[in-house]
């Protein structure tokens, strides 16, 4: 049996992110976009649209999705998959919120299927 290794890294507070907005977390070469919905749920995706690498952190957040600012693909915040007719997926990271602190698990991501 392999033990699941989790690496929860604190990245900030709930209030750091505007509702229906996002903030970036730099992790070496990679940028992770951390989103906060209208209902205060937090999600983390690699800040890279599956279409042409648009920065998803800059999009409009709505209904559990973000609309990419470059060509309006709609990406699920939970799974990172493109919605509707578009196909593609970006990395999604597990998130944990304790009280108001946000943690991201960097060891783990839903790999592109």
């Amino acid at each position, binding site marked *: 049996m392999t033990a699941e290794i989790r*690496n929860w*890294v*604190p*990245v*900030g507070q709930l209030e*750091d*992110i*505007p*509702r*229906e*907005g996002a*903030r*970036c*977390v*730099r*992790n*070496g070469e990679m*940028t992770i976009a*951390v989103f906060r*919905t*209208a*209902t*205060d*749920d937090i999600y983390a995706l690699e800040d890279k649209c599956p279409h*042409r*690498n*648009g*920065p998803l952190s*800059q*999009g*409009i*957040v*709505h*209904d*559990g*999705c973000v*609309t990419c*600012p*470059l060509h*309006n693909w*709609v990406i*699920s*915040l*939970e*799974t990172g*998959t493109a*919605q509707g007719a578009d196909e593609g997926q970006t990395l999604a990271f597990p998130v944990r919120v304790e009280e108001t602190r946000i943690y991201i698990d*960097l060891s783990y991501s839903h790999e592109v299927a």
Partner: protein
Amino acid sequence: MNRKKLVIVGNGMAPGRMLEDLFEKNREAYDVTIFNAEPRVNYNRLMLSPVLSGEKTYEDIITHGDDWYAENGVTLHKSARVSEIDREARTVTSENGITASYDKLVIATGSSPFIIPLPGKDLDGVLTYRDLDDVERMLETAKRGGRAVVIGGGLLGLEAAAGLRMQGMDVTVLHLMPTLMERQLDPSAGFLLEEEFKRRGIDVRTKANSHEILGDDTGKVRGIRLDDGTEIEASIIVMAVGIRPSVDLARAIGLDTNRGILVGDDMRTSDENIFALGECVEHRGMCYGLVAPLYEMARVIAENLLDGVDAYAGSATATKLKVTGVDLYSAGDFAEGEDREEIVLRDASAGVYKRLVLKDNKIIGAVLYGETSDGPWFFDLLKKGTDVSEMRETLIFGQAYQGGAPLDPTAAVAALPDDAEICGCNGVCKGKIVGTIKEKGLTTLDGVRAHTKASNSCGTCTGLVEQLMQITLGDAYNPAAVTPMCGCTTLGHDDVRRLIKSKELKTIPAVMQELEWTSSGGCAKCRPALNYYLVSDWPDEYADDYQSRFINERVHANIQKDGTYSVVPRMWGGQTSSTELRAIADVVDKFSIPTVKVTGGQRIDMLGIRKEDLPAVWADLGKAGFVSGHAYAKGLRTVKTCVGTDWCRFGTQDSTGLGVRIEKFMWGSWTPAKVKMAVSGCPRNCAEATCKDVGVICVDSGYEIHFAGAAGLDIKGTEVLGLVKTEDEALEHIVAVVQMYREQGRYLERIYKWAKRIGYDEVRRQIMDDADKRKSYFDRFVFSQKFAQVDPWSERVSGKDKHEFRPMAVITREAAE
């Protein structure tokens, strides 16, 4: 028989229920002793709010009176706070020196209100809301009148506020988050609740951060100051910002604790003879603040005390706000998610909002406002995980609608009696509408509106009226197909704009509620449109929602394909100077800006700037006098000019001067789509004014104003609006035509499309021929500019929206390994 000894610490609602369960199963098993810090018997804490509002008395809310304890042989020590527990000897001792020994111990210490560590928190008059003593203190102050400030717009805070208001106090609620009860309600329901509280004369302030509680020389509260400097006078301050499980005692005796006292599914703590119960418990990572789960725990403990093996598996919870006249119910998880579906029902005239969240055909969350009778039914479906696919279509209408065949909506309208009211606003019944259609031979919705007033006010009965037309006229009725704004509504842009004005809707949640949006929070199509409509219609009242703006307008720069930004400062009328050019050159060097380019609008574009650098770039540009060129905005972009009479031998007027004047007058205004202008000094038209949204061709006799040109996806020469004699008149006409477009255009509709839609002659008639109309458009534009002409760059240089430009965190390599 020698009975075993059961000792309970705390006499709240949870142990009260546990004892009932225990005695029902076996009255003989235990000798029971209770220690309670409060000086009284067991009462229903939930009902404190009706006591506060005066609708009930303390006697009404007692659960177990003194005789109950006598009858059941239970020893209750009142005013006896337990301070010591000896786990070896199995004894507990209270502060006032009473000791009792136990075989089994139940710790049920509940929780205590969280006190925000503000300066002044210890002043006389700062209260919390937890027990009867708090209520008595509030009632005493309320008698003296004055203002109460309640910090916290959650369940408790709002109940306290409503109660104090009913006791005749002026009440202000300060809430940190943008909407009330954000943990139980989605923003739409939170908005309705806020409106209701305001209607009751309660002053609700959201996004309000308390800074300091102010006192007088006698140590009494006199008011509160917020972070933004606002001061509010108050004779009491009630803090209702949350609760903390009371774990001190358990921790002191070495039980495992985290946020609460840790228990397993059998409700035992890390000591097998000690159970924990109620709000002080943490079970599978959850602490509960509502009674339903506590009652389930109580049942499990009662069973396990009798050597049974019952297990607690956690609970779903539902909340109801107990303020008379406010119906509100929320349960489960109503977050948005891609694998979730939602069903939304809004009935604006009745003030009803219902939202169900489904996942895998099961209800996982419900928010009901205004009409909550189906709450328990939905909650039951939620808890049971019932598959609802069979009743999906009618689910939201509630239990009463289930079972029958789904109604054909048109047949239902046809079946209505003649006196059935169709339009509530104007009191128009079905018979009147049908009669008028026949009598006047009406075939259009507008006709029916004009003759009967039906659906002329709030418009929510439009669907019904159309169905009546369908029934009355049959195929003769052919509704002009309106394209809905987006998937969240059936209304088109024009209807939405009309209703925003006529119903005085001033926030995005208000629009979505009143116009019965079918999604809870809108989408990327409708939100920016609504935001524009509200900015344009209520310039002084509406607070721009930046999260509903496209990124370029949110950060005031243009996003490029690699995620960097480009920056274009204003060059009024396309003129610049050596100082400005030098400043630009310095900025380009300092920030290693890779590309500098002259734009089609006679200014300079710096491309490839990193987002983090934007504020610093703007700061340097600002020092040289530059402001944002709004090259990213659905708003006034550029006014191109030629050199006119200043230099050109053909020039007839000061085209550069007029261009600069227009730009300085109109910059900063938001419009449905971008607006580009130009002024040419003579008909040779070097500034290419005849393919602009608005253009001016100067001639000897004055200024020929053009509009509705295009040189983008479509190419179209301008139409002539008219000729005016003076520069002042030219400005007034240009401003008026743009304002007319601002008020009527659909979001993203350029001027040429708008003008074609409503007719060039109509524009000419209103702007050229009707001086009053023109003047009023002009005045409204001028008014809105008061709020719009703020340089967004300098605002951000001085710190606005800091969060936009900085990463929230930078994870170093080591930490990420």
